[in-house]
């Protein structure tokens, strides 16, 4: 017969396991490195007097929580949701982990805070569109582009990124999204060659697709590699490579359409 105290321990482990599993899955989907996720999990489990044993995989989080005396355990598998990278979520969820340890938050409190964090609205897509355009135009300037080329890059980037946002909304495959966006941005940025605008049309053309470069997956892959999390590292690296290859194909397709030769 199950003793009431054992039942309570079991329920407590179940709650914590479910919460920590979801917490880790959201962190991974938001773009946190594996070592960051591990540290946060261990910190919270330690605060709640539990031993955590887990495995972070590219598609799932497998977590087993043990009671302090290692007599009871509860295991959970949480599928990692498909989600856009959001560093604000990563920052706030990491803060939640530290706050849990410092302020001795309960599981219920932590769950409420996590719900609030994941419910935050993202930056308005039109603002993102403008900022990405401005950032890419600045890249053009850094590589020696003149103001006309910067303007061309701005327009090309805004157009390419707009199409990327819409196609992602329509649930297109991310490789096709990268290819189409890169092709469109490259065709528009070649207007320097086509109409003879500006002194540095090749800089405009080269920098117009930089907004698609998957910087965060690449840096996370390197971080995981350094810390010996090879499976996650390989997974992130492969995904980043797929995007890079797709954007390169989009650029080549634009060259092919406009009959621009590169060497």
């Amino acid at each position, binding site marked *: 017969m199950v003793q009431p105290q054992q039942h309570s321990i079991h329920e407590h482990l179940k709650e914590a396991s479910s919460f920590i599993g979801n917490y880790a899955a959201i962190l991974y989907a938001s773009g946190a490195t594996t070592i960051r996720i591990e540290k946060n999990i261990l910190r919270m489990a330690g605060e709640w007097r539990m031993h955590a044993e887990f495995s972070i995989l590219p598609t799932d989080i497998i977590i087993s929580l043990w009671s302090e005396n290692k007599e009871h355990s509860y295991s959970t*598998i949480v599928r990692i949701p498909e989600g856009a990278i959001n560093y604000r979520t990563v920052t706030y969820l990491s803060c939640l982990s530290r706050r849990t340890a410092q302020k001795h938050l309960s599981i219920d409190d932590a769950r409420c805070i996590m719900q609030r964090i994941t419910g935050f609205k993202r930056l308005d897509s039109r603002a993102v569109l403008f900022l990405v355009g401005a950032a890419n135009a600045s890249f053009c300037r850094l590589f020696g582009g003149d103001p006309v080329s910067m303007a061309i890059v701005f327009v090309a980037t805004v157009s390419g990124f707009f199409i990327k946002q819409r196609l992602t909304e329509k649930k297109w495959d991310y490789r096709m999204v990268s290819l189409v966006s890169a092709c469109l941005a490259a065709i528009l940025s070649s207007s320097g*060659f086509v*109409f003879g605008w500006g002194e540095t049309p090749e800089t405009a053309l080269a920098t117009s697709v930089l907004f698609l470069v998957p910087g965060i997956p690449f840096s996370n892959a390197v971080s995981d590699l350094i810390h010996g999390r090879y499976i996650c590292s390989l997974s992130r690296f492969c995904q980043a490579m797929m995007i890079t290859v797709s954007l390169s194909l989009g650029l080549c397709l634009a060259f092919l*359409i*406009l009959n621009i030769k*590169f060497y």
Partner: protein
Amino acid sequence: MMNILSVSAANLSSFAPAIVWGCLAITVISAMIYSVHDKLKALNNRHHYISWNGDEVSVTTWNNGHNGVSPDGVPFYDTSAEGNDPSETHGHNGTATAA
């Protein structure tokens, strides 16, 4: 200064200007359509001119399909199978899978 991309536009396609303008037009038109669609959706959310339910209702079953709930929400049970133990389907082994 070294160029970051070495390209030659000497043999540029004669359709190139049309292609560039065409791409720009496609982007502008799709932006306008998206904007209008967004505004219409916001208007509909306020006044509820059109309402629909996109949820797909399917049969939910358990016990290898013997028992379940039809799309209309009517539960059905396999009366021919004697001694179906509900605890088999609601068993608890200390492991959960969350989505």
